[in-house]
């Protein structure tokens, strides 16, 4: 018995070391009831993973807890086998677009430069190569012509692209996106998917909260079905089944499909 336990632990150690981002026993509570409970999640390197689940399933909460944006009650995170504190440079994060004040006095190019904060530090000089990288990142999302616009003058889709460009400027190995397709136009969705798949093809790992069940098989390799707890997780082909979806949505699947624009908590 004891021996088995040790072996399990050793095996998990190896699994976590090989995974870009591994979450164990993550529990977060906003008050009395847990938002997520004892969630395990192991990302596959070089894959695009979707987190899918009904409203209030804790999808955004899982992302935020994994990145240390909110403090969990319990749980641990490893990044390429190391601690988040040591590996932070390897993770880029795209928060929900609705979470910021788009009237903030800042231009598109300044937002992208924010992605280089860990490089620049408190007082590091912004040099030509930093500006060139920012322009290049904007170009990759098709926003190069908007560099000097105030962010509030952009459409929702354009704002989302700028957020993605900021993540690209982090030059990370893992890209974590919270509802990247919420409230964006079809052209933007296509552009973002192309960029993310380009990242995946370059060996990067992508994790996104996603709400449109119809596009999961097209866009993603792996899927995590979440409803406070993990219902199922694995490659889309094996995991994204009618049975698992019904289990995750608790028989509310039709509602979920009819309401793809709803923003999950």
């Amino acid at each position, binding site marked *: 018995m004891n021996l088995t336990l040790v072996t399990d632990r050793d095996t998990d150690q190896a699994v976590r070391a090989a995974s870009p981002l591994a979450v164990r026993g993550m529990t977060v509570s906003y008050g009395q009831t847990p938002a997520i409970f004892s969630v395990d999640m192991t990302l596959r390197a070089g894959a695009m993973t979707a987190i899918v689940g009904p409203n209030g399933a804790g999808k955004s909460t899982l992302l*935020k807890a994994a*990145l*240390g*944006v909110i403090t969990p009650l319990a749980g641990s995170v490893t990044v390429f086998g190391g601690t988040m*504190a040591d590996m*932070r440079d390897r*993770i880029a*994060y795209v*928060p*929900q677009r609705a*979470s*910021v*004040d*788009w*009237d*903030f*006095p*800042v*231009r598109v190019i*300044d*937002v992208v430069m*924010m992605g280089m*904060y*860990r490089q*620049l*530090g*408190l*007082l590091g000089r912004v040099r030509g190569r930093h500006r060139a990288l920012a322009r290049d990142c904007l170009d990759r999302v098709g926003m190069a012509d908007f560099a000097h616009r*105030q962010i*509030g*003058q952009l459409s929702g889709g354009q704002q989302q692209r700028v957020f993605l460009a*900021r993540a690209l400027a982090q030059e990370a190995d893992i890209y*974590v996106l919270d509802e990247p397709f919420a409230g964006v136009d079809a052209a933007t969705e296509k552009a973002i998917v192309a960029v993310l798949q380009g990242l995946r093809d370059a060996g990067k790992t992508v994790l996104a909260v996603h709400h449109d069940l119809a596009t999961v098989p097209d866009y993603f390799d792996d899927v995590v079905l979440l409803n406070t707890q993990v219902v199922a997780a694995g490659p889309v082909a094996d995991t994204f089944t009618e049975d698992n979806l019904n289990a995750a949505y608790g028989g509310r699947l039709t509602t979920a499909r009819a309401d793809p624009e709803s923003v999950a908590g």
Partner: protein
Amino acid sequence: MGAEFVALSLPPIVIGVLVAIACALPGNFLLLRGQALIGDAISHVVLPGIVVAFLLTGLVATGPMLLGAAGAAVIAVVAIDAVRRLGRIESGAAMGVIFTAMFAGGVLLLEQSDTSNVHLDVEHALYGNLESLIWLDATGWASLTDPVALAGLPVELPRMALALVVIGLFLWLFWRPLALSTFDEGFARGLGIRTGPLGLALVIMSAIAAVAAFDAVGSIIVIAMFICPPAAARMMTNRLGHQVAWSVLFAALAAVLGYVLAGYGPLWIGASDSVSAAGMIATVSGIILGVAAVAGPHRTRNG
């Protein structure tokens, strides 16, 4: 415009400008964070601190008063945060609860104690005594280079200058994380920026400005300068750096213009007395905001 100006008008104008800029600088970030009223809160809660300091020491001395004011400010900041977290209400409501309660407590303390005989009253708390900050050692512009005369400057002037230097250094050093966490706190935390302590540091800087300014100019200017110059500046530009620069300009303009109008304005319209400089400075800052709101190039909200 010679010796008399240097001795009687220059020190209050300089102090007014220092106060205005010291409050306007952190005010920019407070405004963008939706915490603009924290300046209001701090300038009210320092009153009980000052009264308690007086009751304990029996002195109307700067040292104990500043300590009392700073202590009250810290208590208020912690209490506001506790009410916000434990009560799960927005910070504006938490501030409203704490600062009205503490200010009211200060007024009661003031009335129930012997302080009514000394130079400590509610009116002083509101308007300060900017006009009385004169420089008796000055004999003319030459005094500005005379070390002996400079030693006789009102103590509020170097104190306010020091506060401004501390606040300016803080903003210069932490500009990037402050801007980042003000715009997108989640992203900032994802980068490993400790947004909680940073936000607290910003509030402490605001408290330093408010407490240092309180004794010299009262709370009216402090409240006005935390909000009016940054709000007016926001309508002049869409870039944070430019906004802060505009707010400094507007703050200085309000201080100078307000002081001059208070001293000479009533004479120009035929009245005999001057009016409160603090009140006039705050009024001018409000007028600047009004003009910016009507004519500023970036006054429309997007989206």
